[in-house]
């Protein structure tokens, strides 16, 4: 009974580092490629990530998931390096590599022994402009992505509920559709769709190169110039805003899927740091998430899992760093003999308390201590540091926001937490999904020697 919601949300919500002892070096090439370097000499390794400003929230209807599909096709070869060679070269150089697509970004990474950085740059620069999209490769890879969707979403009751929930919670925001795309869209991508998407977004002036590890910034800038410097920039047209319309009342849905346990998912419309009228509101929502679910002493676990024993698990999450306004989510699974409706009342009761009473100074102190400590802990990982820088830069907040984080959280007051609870966690802006389990009939049969 791990808290799945928390895990998913933490992945897209970097806990930040402060600038006290670390520094990001910034340099922009003439073609617009921004290069960000953080030196960490603890180990002779380096992580290199190329972040593109494109993700599922950039996609129009009919080709949802195309950013993710293109991510897969980026391993399928250029004129210079045929399909599969990229991965073979990285592997032979002791590298570990992969890529990930989110609502607001598509990113590619290699972690390698620090002296091999040029290998990564050469290959990434090549596929930034010279991808060779082949129909026969697309045909196979469509199958792979369809299998990925089956595994991640179709056969996973919680993920299925989340996907259905998003279609209801958002009216017109592109956060409505899943990162992996709708099945009918996936089945009908054409090479020309991918080609157009690639040409529209994959250019040095729409990318950020983030390097963290045992390197010197000056050398990295020179190396970046050598490999990426000659790439031509594109004319990147600005995105239409697609701002979500106001929600005018609570929304509810039931999701019936083969499952064993019921659960409830609730989401309130809230601003992100990027869209908040006042920045402090976003930081106050961040602290509020910590009051509810910042560890085993936080309210949801302490009050609902232990105190009232109404839930076997309960979590809350907020996406501070998304590009557009999003949802403050609560998810819980009822204890045996309790219903999702009782759980809904208990969760709303926790929200009501936050609106009526000030949080205690112990709670506020606890959250600030945790933020300070994670500020140190996360420096243990180059990859995590690169993720933060890349995310902040790609959603348009700027990497400098990482340096402000600890101070901004420290400035949040109990009154501000109460105020954002009153302003944003209101019923008219709430969406709720109930997972109603449908019977699963399983039968086992054994055969002897083949």
């Amino acid at each position, binding site marked *: 009974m791990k808290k799945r919601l928390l895990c998913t949300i933490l992945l897209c919500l970097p806990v930040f580092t402060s600038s006290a002892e670390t520094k990001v070096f910034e340099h922009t090439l003439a073609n617009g490629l921004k290069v960000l370097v953080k030196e960490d000499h*603890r180990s002779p*390794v380096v992580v290199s990530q190329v972040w593109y400003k494109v993700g599922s929230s950039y996609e129009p209807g009919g080709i949802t998931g195309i950013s993710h599909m293109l991510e897969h096709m980026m391993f399928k070869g250029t004129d210079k390096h045929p399909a599969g060679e990229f991965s073979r070269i990285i592997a032979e150089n*002791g*590298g570990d590599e992969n890529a990930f697509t989110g609502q607001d970004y598509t990113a590619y990474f290699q972690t390698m022994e620090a002296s091999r950085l040029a290998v990564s740059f050469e290959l990434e620069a090549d596929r930034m402009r010279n991808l060779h999209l082949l129909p026969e490769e697309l045909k196979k890879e469509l199958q792979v992505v369809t*299998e990925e969707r089956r595994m991640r979403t179709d056969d996973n009751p919680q993920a299925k509920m989340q996907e259905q929930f998003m279609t209801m919670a958002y009216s017109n925001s592109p956060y409505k559709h899943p990162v992996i795309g709708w099945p009918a869209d996936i089945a009908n991508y054409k090479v020309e769709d991918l080609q157009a998407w690639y040409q529209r977004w994959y250019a040095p002036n729409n990318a950020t190169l983030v390097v963290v590890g045992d390197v010197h910034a000056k050398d990295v800038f020179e190396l970046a110039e050598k490999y990426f410097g000659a790439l031509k920039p594109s004319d990147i047209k600005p995105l239409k805003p697609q701002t979500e319309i106001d929600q005018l009342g609570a929304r509810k849905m039931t999701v019936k899927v083969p499952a064993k346990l019921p659960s409830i998912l609730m989401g309130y419309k809230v601003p992100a740091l990027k869209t908040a009228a006042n920045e402090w509101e976003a930081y106050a929502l961040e602290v509020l998430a910590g009051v509810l679910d910042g560890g085993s002493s936080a309210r949801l676990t302490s009050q609902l899992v232990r105190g009232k024993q109404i839930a076997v698990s309960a979590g809350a999450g907020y996406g501070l760093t998304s590009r557009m306004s999003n949802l403050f989510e609560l998810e819980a699974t009822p204890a045996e003999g309790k219903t999702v409706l009782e759980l809904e009342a208990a969760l709303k009761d926790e929200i009501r308390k936050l609106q009526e009473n000030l949080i205690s100074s112990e709670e506020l102190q*606890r959250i600030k*201590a945790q933020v300070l400590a994670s500020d140190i802990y996360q420096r243990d990982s180059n990859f995590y540091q690169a993720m933060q820088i890349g995310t902040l830069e790609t959603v348009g907040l700027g990497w400098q926001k990482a340096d402000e984080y600890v101070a901004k959280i420290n400035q949040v007051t109990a009154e501000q937490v109460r105020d954002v609870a009153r302003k944003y966690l209101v019923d008219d802006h709430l969406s709720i999904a109930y997972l109603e389990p449908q019977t699963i009939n399983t039968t086992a049969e054994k*055969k002897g020697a083949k």
Partner: protein
Amino acid sequence: MRIYLLGFILLAFSQFAFSAAKIEHWQTPQGTRVYYVHTEDLPMVDIQVVFDAGSSSDGQQFGLAALTADLLDTGAGQWNADEIAQRFESVGAQFGVSSSIDSATVSLRTLTDKPLFDKAIETMQVILTKPLFNETDFQREKNRTLAGLKQQEESPAELASIAFYNALYGNHPYAHPESGVIKTVAALKSSDLRNFYQKYYVAANAIVVIVGDLTKQQAEQTAEKLVSGLPTGKERGGLPEVTMPLKSTQQHIEFPSSQTHVLVGLPATYRKDPDYFDLYVGNHVLGGGSLVSRLFEEVREKRGLAYSASSAFIPMLKPGPFIVSLQTRNDQTAQALQVLNQTLADFIAKGPTEAELIAAKKNITGSFAMRFDTNKELAGYVAMIGFYDMPLDYLDTFQQKVNQVTAASITDAFKRRVNTQLLQTITVGKSAEKSAK
């Protein structure tokens, strides 16, 4: 060939440039083995206390070890669960308990600033030595475990894994799921947990791992403080040998999913196995490399049959499983399984090509430093070395042992250790005839 040669020169050079972590080792007066690595760049420390008390110690009470571990931080000494959580979280410490088949691990990540560190260590010490196993906490955690077990049944991947271990291990203590099964967990009593704790959470059955910014003297004091309240007791020992399955079997579990999950394998290698490096490097070629391997190539790249297709040896105290796995659309199961078995059979018959072997060695040795470039990963390696009583120079000799492997030694090891006549196959999904309806 010039490229390969250049690669080797660079590799040799990087080996000299980078030495693996220096592990210091001693025993506390009660006989707890301590493993310590000093790292100084960050004012933090990772501490693990590992007990030989995983689910293989459950006896017939499947789930006993896991639930005992779960209960530790729900009440200890003077404190209830809320107070324990507040004590850690108020100083920014991260505390956790986990259990696996072989072991149970109590872990702490904390800042080393003295007042913060002292409060976290004091709390951990009380949890280790004075857990309460209160009835209310016990009932609640038991119910949460039961809910978790129920939820496993909605996942074809979980069902496949449970059936797989059962098929491989029969009556051996490795056969049952770590969190138990509904029937045995429902029958547990808080006194069972208390007895389990008293028997296995003892000094002689524990190791302490400390990685971080503490001096050796501080590390000695910390280890001593954490375990000095534990009775000496004795090592668990006595885990029975694994007997190989007598024949190949195939089991299908009908499940209303869109994909069929396929697992194929058998009991294979253990931590101190002399064949380990041959199997490890060989498997890297077969299905261990993440985006480059024969299975990945045959199943995904050539045929688009699955999102993931891989193989792994999981070395444990006794032979852990060799697992080949993929997931595919229900109606492609037979084809995917055929490709899987053919790829495996070809590899066992002929082993890797020279080029594949060179590429695998370059990847493994070239990524060596990345295996433990964070304190967290390093602590994981040190805990493995300590728990399985591996040589302290395990990391220092790792690359050399990888380089000593030959195509012939791999083929020989696979032929002896992966007998295709004994493979166990599990499929979970909608069978072809039923999905056609």
